[in-house]
């Protein structure tokens, strides 16, 4: 069996990992280098992550093979998104609501806001996709000491926090779509034959106005759950009012049928 195949098998069988993505290749000297991605690395230190990798390699490979392994870098899925996509400046446009539809017609909604709560500033994002079973949210809290450390003027705070939050939210969506790309890759769908290729080169979120928000009943149920863990940002009211409007329309549609 080829060395990369054997290493891939060893790494795939590590029980402490959830769903590793293994990306190894040979260099010109036939040495093995590459990356292993798994959500579990988020909770491990760099030292523990490398120990886990090398302990398993040492247990299963002989010394001649071990010499050929130069480095296998561990990373979390979000670090992988950053490595493969790099930094791309965001459009100057800001919106509280964003939308993306995949080639399989799965809809991703992104809600994002920044607001002042007492002396703290908070920003949050919520990413929802009913079809793809995604419900991810995160709140960032910047207390006065942190804001002072960042040397932010009052008129800079919104843009700075918004931009960082948007980057994190976009990475979450890309991560989900990259996983879909990987799944299709395992079915031998390469290049543009893989319908999710665009995530790496041409991914876009579309800003939408609050009047364009319309949800299915299933989406409403996921959004309501997600909103429970979000502070009292003003866009919550916009979303709640869009939910009410959507419910009415959904009910009318059911009655007409």
């Amino acid at each position, binding site marked *: 069996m080829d060395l990369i195949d054997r290493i891939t098998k060893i790494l795939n069988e590590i029980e402490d990992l959830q769903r590793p993505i293994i990306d190894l290749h040979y*260099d*010109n*000297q036939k*040495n093995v*280098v590459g990356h292993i991605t798994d959500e579990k690395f988020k909770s491990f230190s*760099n*030292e523990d992550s*490398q*120990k886990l*990798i*090398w302990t398993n*390699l*040492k247990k299963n490979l002989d010394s001649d093979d*071990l*010499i050929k*392994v*130069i*480095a*296998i*870098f*561990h990373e979390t899925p979000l670090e992988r998104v950053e490595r493969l996509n790099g*930094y791309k400046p965001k459009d100057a446009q800001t919106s509280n609501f964003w939308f993306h539809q995949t080639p399989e017609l799965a809809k991703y909604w992104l809600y994002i806001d920044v607001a002042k709560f007492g002396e703290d500033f908070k920003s949050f994002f919520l990413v929802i996709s009913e079809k793809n079973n995604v419900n991810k949210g*995160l709140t*960032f*809290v*910047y*207390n006065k*000491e*942190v804001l*002072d*450390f*960042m*040397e*932010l003027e009052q008129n800079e705070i919104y843009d*700075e926090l918004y931009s*960082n939050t948007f980057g*994190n939210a976009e990475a979450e969506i890309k991560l989900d779509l990259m996983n879909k790309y990987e799944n299709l890759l395992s079915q031998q769908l390469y290049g543009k034959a893989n319908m999710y290729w665009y995530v790496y080169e041409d991914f876009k979120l579309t800003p939408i106005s609050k009047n364009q928000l319309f949800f299915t009943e299933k989406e409403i149920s996921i959004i309501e759950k997600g909103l429970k863990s979000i502070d009292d940002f003003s866009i919550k009211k916009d979303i709640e009012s869009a939910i009410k409007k959507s419910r009415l329309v959904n009910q009318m549609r059911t009655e007409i049928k």
Partner: protein
Amino acid sequence: MAIKHFTHTDYYSASLTRYADLTHLRTNTNSAIFSVYTAGVTIECMFRAYITKYTKEFDSKHDLEKLYAKSLLGSEFDTNEKEQLTIAVKKANEIWTNDLRYASEKRMKRIIAHKNVKANLNDVNKYIERDFSAIFDATELIIEKGKVKWT
């Protein structure tokens, strides 16, 4: 004047010179940003020295993980040392990017703050210290290993 070609000894000497600069810079808190930038350049020069000497491949990118893999420096060491080197490169790569040369002190602080806020860390007094000691320790190890195997 544009220099078209750097030899492996140019890169190696540059690495040691930058390392000496770093030793001086890191003692001055006003040079914090530049010292982090210098740490990454020190590492990059060491990897480029090995790449130019052993593989002749030129890589215009500034990705420390990729440069380390291409340098074959790891192939000179046993598995425990490779493990330590991989950790050091990973840590340095988490903090350093070539774009830091354009970063103002404010921008650098904002990058560090966002990262710490995401990890729910609010003690600003430790923000800089944590990042800096990580990249300086990584640089020290990589330069030490690079020097040991340089012939």
